[in-house]
């Protein structure tokens, strides 16, 4: 039986090796090879060669096809010192990779030669556990989860729609959630606003939501804006660098104000609205898809807006629509899937059916059209003055 040393020499004779300087040159070329790190997680946590993908040696056979789908592309594989990568190179050749080279001297030699390294952003052990069901999805994975942890999503309203969307966004590990709401929890909210609870009656909604969300996931920073969105504060709040806004407002003035502001700040809005048994969801992506005003250029006159008093909503309906909003917001934050931009999804709980209509950009849109006629914020009057329903 050959010794380890003999086996290593035998494998090294069968594969191609490359030194650090030559590898650096290859990686700098116009058609750089794939770079594969096969060390263990604790080694990777200390530092990697920039651009490397990671498959621990023990998972090489099972994960290479998903991580390195192109078997024609050259692969530079490395470990700490060049031994494990020699065996890995041989395995990769057996798996059908056409052109595999092992980095002689490994990461140690690379670093010793003063070549660039970086400490990868990585999830901690607790985060790996908490987000394990995300890590198992190829479209999310560790890179996606890290992206979510760095994402900033602003929620307008911590009511019916904001309750489920904020809960799922917090659970998903969106790093920063902003909540704009000037209202207080009251008994009529609890039939649907599940981010609050009976012992929070009278508490500001934004604060109540913050307590619930941070109890659910301490990874999430919750920024509270205990104020109503107005033309006075909208720029200050939107200027804080949000990736996505989830609109769960309960009135036309806020919806139009938010639309105009989000177009000017170029922040996508996940729009949801509900009434009785029916709800609607779409995504407004500034200048890529339609905005709210492409759809409805002006709010209807106050006397024609549906009276708040005759409203009402099935408690679970905002749960469904708000969850769809969370799903769209996560897709936007991750940059995956087909967003609802350009499509309005309609849900009818009584019929148990979804339908969809197409939304298109209006070249004559007063805000995002070719010749905008609205260039500053408009303060529309509140429709249900003195009798404002709460989302």
């Amino acid at each position: 039986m050959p010794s380890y040393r003999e086996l290593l020499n035998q494998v090294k004779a069968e594969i191609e090796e490359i030194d650090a300087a030559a590898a650096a040159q290859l990686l700098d070329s116009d058609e750089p090879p794939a770079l594969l790190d096969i060390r263990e997680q604790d080694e990777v946590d200390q530092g990697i060669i920039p651009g490397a993908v990671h498959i621990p040696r023990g998972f090489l056979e099972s994960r290479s096809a998903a991580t390195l789908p192109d078997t024609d592309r050259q692969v530079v594989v490395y470990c700490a010192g060049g031994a494990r990568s020699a065996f890995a190179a041989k395995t990769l050749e057996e798996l059908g990779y056409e052109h595999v080279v092992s980095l002689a001297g490994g990461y140690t030699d690379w670093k010793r030669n003063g070549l660039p390294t970086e400490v990868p952003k990585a999830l901690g052990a607790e985060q790996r556990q908490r987000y394990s069901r995300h890590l198992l999805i190829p479209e999310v994975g560790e890179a996606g989860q890290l992206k979510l942890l760095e994402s900033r999503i602003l929620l307008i309203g911590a009511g019916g729609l904001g309750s489920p969307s904020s809960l799922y966004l917090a659970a998903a590990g969106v790093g920063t959630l902003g909540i704009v709401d000037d209202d207080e929890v009251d008994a009529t909210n609890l039939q649907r606003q599940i981010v609050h609870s009976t012992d929070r009656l009278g508490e500001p909604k934004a604060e109540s939501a913050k307590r619930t969300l941070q109890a659910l996931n301490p990874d999430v920073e919750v920024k509270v804006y205990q104020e109503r969105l107005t033309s006075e504060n909208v720029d200050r709040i939107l200027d804080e660098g949000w990736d996505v806004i989830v609109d769960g407002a309960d009135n036309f003035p806020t919806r139009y104000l938010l639309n105009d502001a989000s177009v000017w700040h170029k922040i996508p809005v996940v729009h949801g609205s509900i009434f009785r048994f029916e709800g609607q969801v779409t995504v407004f992506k500034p200048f890529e898809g339609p905005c709210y005003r492409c759809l409805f250029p002006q709010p209807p006159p106050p006397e024609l807006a549906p009276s708040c008093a005759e409203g009402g909503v099935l408690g679970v309906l905002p749960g469904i629509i708000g969850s769809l909003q969370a799903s769209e917001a996560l897709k936007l934050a991750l940059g995956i899937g087909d967003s609802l931009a350009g499509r309005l999804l309609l849900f009818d709980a009584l019929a148990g059916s979804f339908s969809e209509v197409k939304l298109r950009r209006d070249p004559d849109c007063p805000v995002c059209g070719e010749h905008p006629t609205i260039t500053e914020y408009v303060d529309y009057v509140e429709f249900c003055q003195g009798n404002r329903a709460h989302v």
Partner: protein
Amino acid sequence: MSLVRIPPTLRAETGGAREVPAEGGTVRELLDDLTARFPALNGQLQYANVYVNGEDVRTLDGEDTPVDDDTTVILLPAMAGGV
């Protein structure tokens, strides 16, 4: 006769009906017939978008967009959020 989907915010005007039949060869004729049947809709429909088979009529031929028995017509006014 086409079926027109009435949004929940306008159902008080149609006696609670979620879908109502209306007659006409174009969107304009259809809406005229609709308001004739449900006069309470008068003055409301100009604030609603009209979708014919999922397309906004503003991107088709507007109120001249033809409709037939198989056409799905959806009326959609702005909905602020409600409750």
